[in-house]
C-alpha cells in the first residue's frame, strides 16, 4: 500500500533555519551541541537555536510556525489548505495551569495558540518522545479513511526547566555531547527545534503536480512495555516487525534509529535491529541517527528523523552519525556513512520510542523517477 505520500517538509534546528541547513550539517558530521547560552538550567551540553524569534510569542510557537511555513512552500502550496487536518504533537495542549507568568510553562505545554497555526481542524497528539511518529501514523490513517486529502504533522521542542528536569531526574542526560551507538556513550543531549510534514493522498498530490515519490508505506504504533522506560527489546522488535508487515515489504535499505545515546536504550535498539536484519536476511544495513548532531527534540524528534530519511532515500547518501567514533560491534548493521545501492525502489524505516511504552516504526519508500 503506497497511497499516502510526503510532499513537503520544513525544519528549524540548532544548525539554523531550514531543511538544507540541517542536511548540510548532517553530511558534514557537524555537531551543534555545546554549553548553554540562553537556557540557564543546563549544566550539560545542549543544542540551542540561536536564531532570534519574535518577542511577542513563545519560541515553541514561533519555531512551529516557521517549520510549517517551509513545509507548505516545499509542498508547492500557498498555505495550509482549509480542509487539511493539522496534527500538533507535544506534552499536553495549552492550559494556563496557574503558570501563565512562567515563560518556561509556555515552552512545556501548548503551543499557546493553535488558531495562529491552523484552522479548526487541528488535533493534538501526545505519545512522549514518539509523538511525531505517532502523528504521522494517525495522519496516514485519516487520509486512508477518507477523512482528509491533506494533513500537516508539526511539533517543536524548546529547552525549558520542566522537561529538562524530567530528563535529569531519570539520569538520562549526558555530561558530554551525545554519542549515539558509540561504546563510550553516556546519555542524551537535549536540543531545540521544530519540524513539519505535509502528507497527502497520492492521487491528490499527483493531480496538483506535487512530488509523489516518497510514500509512507507502513506504520506500527503501539503502547506496550513491561516497564515505563523506553527500552524494551521485545516490544521494539515486535513494533519493527509489525511495521514491516504493514508495509508489505521484504527489504530495508536504511534505518534512521531513535538512538538517543543512552547506554541501555541504544543497546536494546541495536539488538532489535539485528533481529530484524536477520529476519530480512540483510547484511550491512546502514543505520544512522541525528541526535549527536542537534540533540534530542523529545516529542518532535521524529520530524528531523523523517526528513533525514527522506533525503537519504532521495540522494542515496547516508550521512555519518555525529559523535560516533567508537562504534558498537554489529553483525548485520553498518553504523557509519554509506551509499545506498542503486535501485528502482528504496525502503527505509524510522524508529521512535518514548517513556510509557510508546513505540512507533514508520516505513518510507521511494520510487525513483
Amino acid at each position, binding site marked *: 500500500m503506497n497511497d499516502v505520500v510526503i510532499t513537503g517538509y520544513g525544519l528549524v534546528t540548532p544548525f539554523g533555519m531550514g531543511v538544507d541547513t540541517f542536511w548540510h550539517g548532517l553530511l558534514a558530521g557537524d555537531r551543534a551541541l555545546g554549553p548553554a547560552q540562553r537556557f540557564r538550567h543546563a549544566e550539560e551540553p545542549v543544542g540551542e537555536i540561536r536564531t532570534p524569534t519574535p518577542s511577542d510569542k513563545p519560541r515553541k510557537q514561533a519555531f512551529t510556525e516557521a517549520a510549517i511555513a517551509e513545509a507548505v512552500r516545499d509542498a508547492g502550496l500557498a498555505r495550509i489548505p482549509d480542509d487539511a487536518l493539522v496534527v500538533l504533537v507535544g506534552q499536553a495542549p495549552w492550559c494556563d495551569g496557574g503558570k501563565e507568568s512562567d515563560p518556561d510553562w509556555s515552552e512545556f505545554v501548548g503551543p499557546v495558540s493553535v488558531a495562529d497555526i491552523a484552522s479548526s*481542524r487541528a488535533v493534538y497528539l501526545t505519545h*512522549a518522545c514518539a509523538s511525531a511518529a505517532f502523528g504521522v501514523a494517525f495522519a496516514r490513517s485519516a487520509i486512508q479513511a477518507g477523512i482528509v486529502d491533506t494533513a500537516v504533522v508539526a511539533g517543536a521542542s524548546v529547552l525549558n526547566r520542566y522537561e529538562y528536569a524530567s530528563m535529569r531526574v531519570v539520569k538520562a542526560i549526558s555530561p558530554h555531547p551525545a554519542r549515539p551507538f558509540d561504546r563510550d556513550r553516556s546519555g542524551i543531549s537535549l536540543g531545540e527545534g521544530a519540524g513539519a510534514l505535509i502528507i497527502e493522498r497520492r492521487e491528490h498530490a499527483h493531480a496538483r503536480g506535487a512530488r509523489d515519490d516518497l510514500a509512507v508505506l507502513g506504520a506500527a504504533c503501539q503502547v506496550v512495555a513491561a516497564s515505563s522506560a523506553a527500552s524494551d527489546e521485545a516490544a521494539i522488535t515486535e513494533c519493527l516487525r509489525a511495521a514491516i508487515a504493514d508495509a508489505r515489504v521484504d527489504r530495508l535499505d536504511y534505518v534512521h534509529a531513535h538512538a538517543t545515546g543512552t547506554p541501555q536504550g541504544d543497546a536494546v535498539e541495536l539488538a532489535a535491529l539485528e533481529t530484524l536484519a536477520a529476519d530480512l536476511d540483510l547484511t550491512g544495513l546502514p543505520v544512522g541517527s541525528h541526535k549527536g548532531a542537534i540533540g534530542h527534540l523529545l516529542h518532535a524528534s521524529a520530524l528531523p528523523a523523517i526528513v533525514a530519511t527522506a533525503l537519504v532515500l532521495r540522494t542515496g547518501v547516508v550521512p555519518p552519525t555525529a559523535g560516533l567514533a567508537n562504534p558498537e560491534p554489529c553483525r548485520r548493521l553498518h553504523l557509519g556513512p554509506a551509499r545506498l545501492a542503486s535501485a528502482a525502489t528504496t525502503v527505509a524505516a524510522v524508529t521512535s520510542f518514548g*517513556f510509557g511504552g510508546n513505540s512507533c516504526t514508520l516505513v518510507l519508500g521511494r520510487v525513483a523517477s
Partner: protein
Amino acid sequence: MAHTPGIVIGGTDQSSLAAAATAAADRLAAPPHHSPDTTAAVRGTLEAALAALPPPHRTTTPLLVLADAYSTWAARRFAQRIDDPTRRLRPSDSIRLETSELIRTVAVDTGWRGPCYQLAALTAERALSVASALISQHPSLLLCEVALLNPDDLTEPGCLAVIAVWPRPSGVAWTTPVTSHPVSVPSQLLAALPTRPSGAPSSRGWTDAA
C-alpha cells in the same frame, strides 16, 4: 456492522458510575467497573472493553483516547512536584507525565497490540466523526474518554472512563443502583453518542455530527 457502538464504563466514584450506567442504558456492553484510583479504573475499563470484542479483534483493534483532561492534569501535577520545596523530584514523577501510563500494562496483560492514538483538542462529536470514518478501514475500534472528576486534585483526580466499542457487543443485564443524590454525568462522549442505531456514517469528512 451496526454503527451505533456499545458502551463500557468504569471509574472511581460509584455515584458517577451509576449515573453513567443509567445514561448508557441498554447500550452497556459490560458491567460498570469500579476501581479506587484513576489508573486502575482506566486499565480495568479498557480490559473490559477489549473483552467485549469478538476474540479475533481483541489483539488488533485500534484505540483512540481523548486525553485532554489527563494530559493537562499530568503536566500540572509535574509542575507542582518540580516546585515543591518539601520533596525532591523523583523518577516516578517524570514517568507519570505520560498519558500512556494509563494503558501501558493493558497490552502486557491482554496481548492487545493495536494502534493507539492519544488525542486532545478534539470535541467528542469530532472524535465520533473520526471514529466513524476509521471503522470503514477496521473491523473494530475503541474510543475512550477519560473524564476527570476533580482535576484540581493533583494527587488523585478520580475519573469516569467511557469507552465506545465497535462493533456493538451484546448488552448485559445490569440493574442501576438507586442513588439518593442524582449526579450529572461528566462525560461529553456519552452525551454525544447516538442512542439508537443510525445509518452508515459518512466515509468522508470532518463533521460535528457522529
